[in-house]
């Protein structure tokens, strides 16, 4: 043994040494030779680097001559030069005919080189490429299987239609070749051909031949067939190409043991799509897959993990095997972390998912995620993330010690994340909170600027999780106020000061110091500062009035930011009307922040677990969200967890709700109307441009109120807080520009929107909104709405006379509009309208008027005349008014139409905060002539398929997705006139929410 060892030492020595020698030798010869002319021929044979250097003019001509040389050797050299030029991106396509001429040769290397060239340039020279076809066809019959395979492989790579036609016959032969090497090459060729011409592949029946190859006797052929089918299936999500049944699964599992590592990946990924019939089958597959966990190829390991993670769902938890499997999963995952950093990164992203789904697998492996000094930054950040996910009471001490160490590292990004991680630990593991806070305080003491800022941001979160527990540290935080220069840190600090204003003696001074540069701050800080000062004011009203006035005027008057202004107004209004309410609102108890805000949402997580090892798992997004080219990716779900074995893609459970009477009409959202009023595009003299300076008495009064309020505020002659209410009045002078004129009603509405809408369904009568304010129409105020009653569209209006004189002789006219709405009769105002008198009118409308496309689509411009003048206004009607009663489509027709309408016309919208279940929604919509044709339930998600028809015969098809417990609905609309989608969506929202 001793002797052996010695021999061995020598050999291993030369194992490395010889390689070096070969290489050095090459260099030693080439280096001196290349410049020396007499040795040039010899030297130039040694390496290919010379191909890079020929840049002189006429190179192409020279090559051409060489390619046509009689000498074989010279030809080959020339082709090599051409290939080398090609690889570095030079254009040598001009040599195409000359190179193709070299194709008919027995020299395999030359043949291969020519093939390489062909693949690259055939596309640009399709006519010339035809010349090569004969040789290809001949080569496919060659006795040497290597040449047969090479020919069929190369033909598949030539992406020229004319050539693909000739490819079919040779390919068919090769798929049935006696030599498995040829068969396996041909299998991949089918995928290539499908990529070029999918129809051809289907017509020629290659897919069936490919399916047959899954049962081939050679495992390599099986693996390639699976790979080709998987790739083809990606572009045909519903084609059922990989029809997996227990027999094929068995074949695949057998092939799995014998094929190459890459083949194993394809087979495992394919297995992952299978749903076993019962837990027994699931277990037996798991048993046969587990040996793959010990494979040297990490991609095989991860694909095996995917299969196991998925099939584990079906195993009963009390099964012994379940526990064994859990234990077996940990070591391979840990091993992945000792691979190259790029592999580590992908592994870590996947482990992140696995840890969320089954934390028990890695709960004892915390230490392998400790960051090493020379890990690349992307690995470090991922490791940190997982450390926090694994942190528990048992290991928190270790984790904290590590994190503290990281917080003193060099890399700024990493340090920041480490500090943040300490905060997250505090929030996650309650017992550790105290230790985390003291660690953070230690870090603040280092005075390293970015560490301090980051620490303050996380301490804010800790305060929100454990209120009234760690406020003793505030003093320390306040010491660092001046060093904060990042918006997030400043905002966090301001929040802390505002929240704990009563415990900080000089809170007002602190906040005041921020106020000086108010306009240079970022929005985040400005908003926070506004809120903090209002909090301070509510807590210590006596000393801080000046401050609060200052900030309110800064926010509302001097700022261009609408968010800031709105918040300013709301606070102002609140403080002025009801300080008690203000207290309730501003100082309300905040919900505790949850410990796992960053967890992936469970349904997404389930889907991602099915995609372990894929790009989806790296991005933590479902494949449908980003993978291009995979038209209609199927959503994968873990088995077991979702009971329904839904597979059909047609809506199959129809809802048989009858048509209810008295369809509830819907008003568009108030905001739209208000906005529209401001942007009147009619041009009568009275309403041109922005709202003119207030002229009516009422408006003046409002102005006075504002002005006075502001004056008195700024004057500071207010006694105590109870008196404040009167003093604040309303928002200051800037207001009229941003609010519609009917202030008195409008503004109140703004604050109690939705307070008065709670009418019973069916008999719903939408509240009217003001279309024409009195001040614009010499005292005539018109408010109104649209409704569809018993199949007739009606415009219901209230005319109010706010002038001093009687109004008579009313008439109405519409401008041309998108759907040809026109009054079906004259405006029936029979009696004169006296001062301060109102009259209700219902005007039936027809849809046969002149048509002109409006912007927005449902805009209606109206002119109303009376004895005084003509007034113009515009309003928007909800498009649901135009939904006719016979808008229910046949199911078959629906399906066909849905498929027929191009996908580009599909529009998707979200409806937020809707708390109806799907049935209620369906019947509610039915009232407005939106007909539910079918309903199906997939994993707790209800899909309603609906149709509606507009008065002008446009059909709109909709798919409404409702998930129990999720207040956000998704509507997909398909219509041949896609421009109506937006309006239909708005109506949907309005219909569902009323």
């Amino acid at each position, binding site marked *: 043994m001793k002797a*052996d060892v010695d*021999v061995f030492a020598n050999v*291993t020595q030369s194992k490395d040494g010889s390689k*070096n020698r*070969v290489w050095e030798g090459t260099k030693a010869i*080439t280096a001196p030779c290349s410049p020396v002319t007499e040795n040039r021929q*010899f030297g130039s044979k040694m*390496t*290919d680097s010379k*191909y890079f250097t020929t840049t002189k003019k006429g190179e192409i001509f020279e090559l051409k001559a060489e390619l046509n040389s009689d000498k*074989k050797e010279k030809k080959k050299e020339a082709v090599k030069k051409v*290939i080398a030029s090609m*690889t*570095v991106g030079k254009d040598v396509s001009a040599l195409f005919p000359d190179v193709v001429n070299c194709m008919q040769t027995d020299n*395999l*290397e030359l043949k*291969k080189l020519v093939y*390489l060239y062909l693949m690259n340039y055939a596309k640009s020279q399709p006519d010339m490429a035809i010349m090569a076809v004969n040789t290809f066809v001949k080569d496919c019959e060659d006795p040497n299987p*290597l040449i047969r395979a090479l020919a069929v*492989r190369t033909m*598949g*790579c030539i*992406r020229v239609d004319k050539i693909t036609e000739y490819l079919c016959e040779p390919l068919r032969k090769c798929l049935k070749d006696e030599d*498995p090497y040829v068969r396996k090459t041909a299998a991949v060729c089918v*995928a290539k051909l499908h990529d070029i011409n999918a129809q051809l592949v289907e017509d020629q029946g290659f897919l069936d031949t490919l399916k047959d190859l899954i049962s081939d006797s*050679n495992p*390599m052929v099986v693996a390639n067939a699976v790979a080709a089918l998987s*790739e083809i299936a990606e572009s045909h999500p519903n084609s059922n190409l990989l029809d997996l049944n227990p027999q094929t699964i068995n074949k695949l599992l057998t092939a799995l043991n014998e094929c190459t*590592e*890459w083949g194993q*990946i394809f087979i495992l990924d394919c297995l992952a799509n299978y749903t076993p019939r019962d837990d027994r089958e699931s277990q037996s597959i798991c048993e046969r897959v587990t*040996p793959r966990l*010990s494979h*040297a190829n990490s*991609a095989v390991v991860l694909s095996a993990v995917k299969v196991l993670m998925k099939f584990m769902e079906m195993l009963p938890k009390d099964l012994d095997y379940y526990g064994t499997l859990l234990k077996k999963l940990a*070591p391979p995952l*840990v*091993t992945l972390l*000792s691979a190259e*950093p*790029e*592999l580590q990164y*992908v*592994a870590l992203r996947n482990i992140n998912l696995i840890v969320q789904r089954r934390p028990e697998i890695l709960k004892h492996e915390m230490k*392998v995620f*400790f960051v090493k*000094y*020379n890990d*690349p*930054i*992307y690995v470090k950040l991922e490791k940190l993330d997982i450390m926090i996910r694994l942190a528990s009471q048992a290991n928190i001490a*270790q984790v904290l010690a590590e994190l503290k*160490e990281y917080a*003193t590292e*060099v890399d700024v990004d990493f340090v920041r994340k480490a500090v943040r991680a300490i905060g997250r630990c505090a929030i996650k593991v309650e017992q550790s909170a105290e230790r985390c806070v003291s660690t953070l305080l230690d870090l603040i003491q280092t005075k390293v600027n970015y560490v301090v800022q980051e620490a303050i941001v996380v301490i804010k979160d800790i305060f929100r999780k454990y209120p009234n527990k760690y406020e003793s540290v505030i003093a320390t935080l306040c010491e660092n106020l001046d060093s904060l220069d990042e918006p997030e840190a400043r905002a966090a600090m301001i929040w802390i000061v505002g929240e704990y204003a009563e415990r900080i003696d000089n809170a007002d001074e602190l906040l005041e110091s921020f106020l000086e540069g108010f306009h240079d701050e970022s929005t985040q800080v400005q908003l926070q500062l506004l809120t903090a000062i209002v909090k301070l004011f509510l807590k210590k009203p006596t000393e801080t009035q000046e401050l609060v006035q200052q900030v309110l005027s800064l926010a509302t008057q001097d700022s261009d930011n609408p968010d800031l202004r709105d918040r300013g107004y709301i606070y102002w209004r609140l403080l002025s009307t009801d300080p008690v309410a203000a207290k309730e609102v501003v100082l309300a108890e905040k919900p505790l922040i949850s410990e796992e805000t960053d967890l992936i949402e469970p349904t997404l997580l389930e889907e991602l677990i099915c995609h372990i090892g*894929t*790009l*989806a798992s790296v*991005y933590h997004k479902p494949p449908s969200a980003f993978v291009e*080219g995979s038209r209609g990716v199927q959503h994968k779900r873990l088995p077991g967890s979702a009971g329904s074995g839904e597979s059909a893609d047609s809506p199959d459970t129809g809802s048989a709700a009858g048509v209810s009477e008295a369809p509830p009409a819907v008003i568009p959202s108030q905001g739209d109307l208000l906005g529209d009023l401001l942007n009147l595009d009619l041009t009568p003299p009275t309403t041109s441009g922005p709202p003119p300076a207030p002229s009516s008495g009422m408006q003046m009064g409002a102005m006075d109120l504002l002005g006075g309020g502001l004056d008195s505020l700024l004057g500071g002659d207010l006694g105590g807080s109870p008196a404040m209410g009167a003093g604040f009045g309303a928002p200051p002078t800037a207001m009229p520009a941003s609010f519609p004129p009917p202030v008195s009603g409008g503004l109140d509405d703004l604050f109690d929107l939705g307070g008065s809408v709670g009418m019973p369904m069916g008999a719903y009568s939408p509240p009217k909104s003001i279309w024409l304010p009195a001040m614009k129409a010499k005292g005539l105020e018109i408010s109104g709405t649209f409704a569809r009653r018993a199949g007739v569209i009606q415009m219901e209006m209230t005319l109010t006379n706010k002038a001093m004189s009687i109004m008579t002789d009313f008439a109405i006219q519409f401008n041309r509009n998108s759907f040809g709405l026109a009054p079906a009769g004259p405006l029936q105002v029979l009696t004169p309208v006296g001062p301060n008198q109102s009259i209700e009118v219902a005007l039936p409308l027809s849809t046969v008027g002149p048509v002109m496309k409006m912007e927005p689509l449902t805009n209606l411009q109206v002119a109303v005349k009376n004895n005084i003048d003509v007034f113009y206004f515009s309003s928007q009607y909800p498009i649901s008014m135009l939904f006719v009663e016979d808008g229910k489509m046949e199911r078959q027709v629906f399906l066909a139409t849905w498929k027929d309408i191009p996908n580009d016309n599909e529009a998707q919208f979200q409806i937020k905060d809707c708390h109806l279940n799907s049935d209620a929604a369906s019947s509610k919509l039915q009232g407005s002539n939106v007909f539910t044709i079918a309903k199906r339930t997939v994993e707790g998600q209800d899909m309603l398929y609906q149709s509606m028809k507009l008065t002008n015969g446009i059909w709109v098809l909709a798919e409404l997705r409702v998930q129990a417990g999720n207040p956000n609905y998704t509507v997909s609309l398909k219509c041949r006139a896609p421009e109506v989608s937006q309006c239909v969506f708005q109506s949907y929202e309005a219909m569902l929410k009323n």
Partner: protein
Amino acid sequence: MIHSLFLINHTGDIFLEKHWKSVIGRSVCDYFFEAREKAVEPENVPPVLQTPHHYLISIYRGKLFFLSVIQTEVPPLFVIEFLHRVADTIQDYFGECSEGVIKDNVVTVYELLEEMLDNGFPLATESNVLKEMIRPPTILRSVVNTLTGASNVGDTLPTGQLSNVPWRRVGVKYTNNEAYFDVIEEIDAILDKSGTTVFAEIQGVIEACVRLTGMPDLTLSFMNPRLLDDVSFHPCVRFKRWESERVLSFIPPDGNFTLMNYHVSSQNLVAIPVYVKQSISFFETGPCGRLDITIGPKQTMGKTVEGLMVTIHMPKAVLSANLTATQGTYTYDLATKVLVWDIGKLNPQKLPNLKGSLTTQAGTPKPEDNPSLNIDLKIQQLAISGLKVSRLDMYGEKYKPFKGVKYLTKAGKFQIYIYMFIFLENLMSYLLFEWLQCVLKHSI
């Protein structure tokens, strides 16, 4: 599947491109260059990048980026593994994976890439198979080829491609039959300031060099196979026999290959061969600091520690170092702020020490970032986990081969957290500290 491959050197030039499907313009690499710019260090470029129409997956090997472009959902690990395989193959063929070598052999590389992937599907990645189809260049062959006009490309079907042992070619013949195994273990460890192990594990690998005639069937058994609970094998190893008998049974590939990787993570099994006593201190005011490092043997199982080297990444503020080493030499790189102390053999009788002063930039505040200390070492004839091969048996062939096993332990990522004292005011406190240390030393 894999669509295209670009090879990019460290200056950002694309010097080779290969497309397995349609041609994708080089402009797609701009997204990569952007990320490269942002990452500052080439090691820090994220391996998976998303562009509007493609995904870029890259690895960094031998100062080169191997950048692959993919268009559909492909397992990224699959791509990364493949790219490493490309780099391995180039290394295997030409002895080195560098820009120069690839340019020197560009046509061979191109042929190799063509053989390795077909339409993005891996075709032949086993080096045995590839070498049968495309012969690696040797001086002799080049000369012969030049004279006779023979080519580098084999014209027979590689036999391994379809057999049940795709990794081995048939008809192998040697006059000297030999099988050697290297058991190489790397210690990855993090020690805290007091020398306590924070984290330690062993990454082990068994590299084999087998040159045996015919189709030998080998069985390798260990004295203590229970150490190995986390293993990954070369595809040739029969997993069933490992599960049931804890022996490695396999028909070996011809030549050099990695038989298995293993991982020992239970900490009590990981011996830490050296200890480090260190102190680095700076003054709050004044432009200087002190450094004092001593290394001694801890658990070496009676073997000598060789190739000892200490690398310290100094805080950015440190300008220069004026130190004395009792053994070995030290260098301090001003640009990277890396102090390297090359010690060599560790003599337990006379512990190596490095001591002296550090100059920091005048006027700057005290260093903010903690220095880090990494150790490199080698121990011959020892597998630190205690793993031992007991025997190697050969079946299926009649001759008697030479056999040998060698052990080697190295430091992998071996890192020690450092004390860094900051003295607040003046020299007095420092002197006090020195004195205290002195007292402590003598009292021990």
